[in-house]
């Protein structure tokens, strides 16, 4: 029936109008428009709910919400600074640790020609991404943290801790949970995603760019620096943002190893607290009307804003660094 109508419409109008294809086109267009609009509405709705919920706390506490170190539901005083600080510090540590490893792994997975090395390694990296974060948290609490605290922390304090400026990062404390542990756990968790995306990006580097560098007498390593990394740079930044997003938002594993302490210390070996961790720990106690409830929503808003600002900043960075380069 359909078939016949297509042939007839050709003869009728003189112009081939294929109805079936038009219906497909219209459905596709309608579907994609609906989905993308839905996404925008969802994000806007989320922000509106967060903002209205956060409004009482923000208006009552004002700027002190961002500058105060006190978080006291009894006196109804809420300062978010320790959480913001802890979130940024642990995410930074995680990125600093994960980025070189991920780029190195991605290069390895692209450059190694032997299937026997490449395929198992790829599967392994992808498997890391599939492990639930609470498992990472348990492992971090029972295995990683004791190991880090017994061996790595004293070592860092003895060596890097003696350096003039960097030393402040490694002042030892007796705490079991600390920001370094959280950073290391986060790094392990974001390596798979950064690696996977970077690997894909590097695979798209045109063969003729690699050939160009090789023909200039570049070694493999030089060829990576001359052709691969410059071309893949913006994609690697994108991969990093994905990893950072996960690090900023990771809740349970961090909460299990960071020590959940309210201080703000320059030392990574001191306990800290993050925004997701405090939200997860306190949402039960926050009554739906009290200021604590609003303060938690304000924290969530801050977290979203941090993520959006960092994502925007990275876009800007990429665009600036390659203005006219593409």
């Amino acid at each position, binding site marked *: 029936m359909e078939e016949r109508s297509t042939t007839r419409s050709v003869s009728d109008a003189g112009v081939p109008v294929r109805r079936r294809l038009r219906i497909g086109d219209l459905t596709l267009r309608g579907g994609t428009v609906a989905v993308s609009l839905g996404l925008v509405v969802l994000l806007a709705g989320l922000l509106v709910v967060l903002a209205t919920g956060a409004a009482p706390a923000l208006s009552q506490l004002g700027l002190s919400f961002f500058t105060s170190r006190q978080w006291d539901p009894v006196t109804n005083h809420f300062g978010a600074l320790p959480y913001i600080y802890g979130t940024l510090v642990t995410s930074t540590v995680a990125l600093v640790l994960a980025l070189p490893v991920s780029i190195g792994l991605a290069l390895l997975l692209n450059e190694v*020609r032997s299937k026997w090395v490449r395929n198992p390694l790829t599967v392994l990296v992808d498997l890391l991404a599939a492990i639930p974060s609470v498992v990472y948290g348990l492992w971090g609490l029972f295995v990683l943290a004791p190991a880090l605290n017994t061996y790595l922390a004293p070592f860092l304090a003895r060596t890097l801790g003696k350096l003039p400026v960097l030393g402040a990062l490694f002042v030892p404390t007796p705490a079991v949970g600390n920001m370094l542990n959280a950073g290391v756990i986060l790094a392990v968790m974001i390596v798979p995603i950064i690696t996977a995306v970077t690997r894909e990006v590097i695979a798209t580097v*045109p063969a*003729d*760019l690699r*050939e*160009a*560098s*090789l*023909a*200039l*007498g*570049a*070694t493999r390593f*030089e060829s990576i*620096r*001359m*052709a691969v990394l*410059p*071309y893949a740079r913006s994609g690697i930044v994108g991969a990093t943002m994905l990893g950072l997003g996960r690090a900023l938002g990771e809740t349970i594993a961090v909460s299990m190893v960071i020590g959940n302490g309210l201080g703000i210390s320059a030392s990574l070996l001191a306990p800290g607290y993050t925004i997701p961790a405090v939200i997860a720990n306190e949402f039960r106690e926050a009554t739906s009307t009290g200021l604590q409830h609003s303060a938690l929503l304000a924290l969530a808003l801050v977290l979203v804003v941090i993520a959006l600002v960092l994502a925007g900043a990275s876009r800007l960075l990429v665009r600036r660094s*390659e*203005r*006219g*380069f*593409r």
Partner: protein
Amino acid sequence: MSDTFASDSAESLGILETLVRPAVSRAGEREAESTSAPMVTVNGLGVAYGSKTALEGVSMLIPERRITAFIGPSGCGKSTALRCFNRMNDGISGFRISGGTVLLDGQDVYARGVNVTALRRAVGMVFQQPNPFPMSIYDNIALAVREHERGISRSTLDGIVEQALRQANLWDEVRDCLTQSALSLSGGQQQRLCIARALAVRPTVLMLDEPCASLDPISTGRIEELLLELSADYTIVIVTHNLAQAQRISDKVGFFLMGRLVEFGDALQVFEASARPETAEYVRGAFG
């Protein structure tokens, strides 16, 4: 990495010092020679990819500081032959030399212990598609020089970049926008930039694999002019599908057909009075 090309070759490479010596220094000697000595000597070369034969029994003498053109229908092995001169085939899986030798200035390029990166600096290569790196015009040229000569001073580097761009007839067009992206240049300019990039590491041989295939006639004309100028100092080998181009610029022509070198000789003779019927047919445009 050693500091200079000369020390590179002297130390380890098994490539003669003369091979990596800057070509410019030989410029004065040219007049003294009545006939050009062979720069590349190919002797019964055979190449196979896996079980498939790509080249068989190819022999030729490529003269120094002349333009040699490889012509022939697609898939006839001319690019494969070219890529044997700087071992760009090494990375292709299944590639092997099934017989014969390639001598560059008397040195076997496939001998054991040859430093491939030094070889590739001595034999510059330009590809069919202009392939500048996604960075500034300046960096495109400076990058490889910097890799090979660590600690080179900024002013020396500036000089090398300018000289390379001048040699490629590009300096006047880009002197004011060296920090701009190389990808903002036109296709013809990009291709000349690639030539400049190859010249900046001071090769003795410059190979071009269909360098004008993606360019318009005017850009093509400029590249041809440039190659004629450069042939005073460099041994040039060009693969081309454009018979008129081969006729316009080349001194020697090699005609490849199905993995064999059917004919190799002076351009005039190959085009006007070819010894083999296949060549005559091809240059008449009967096939290919």
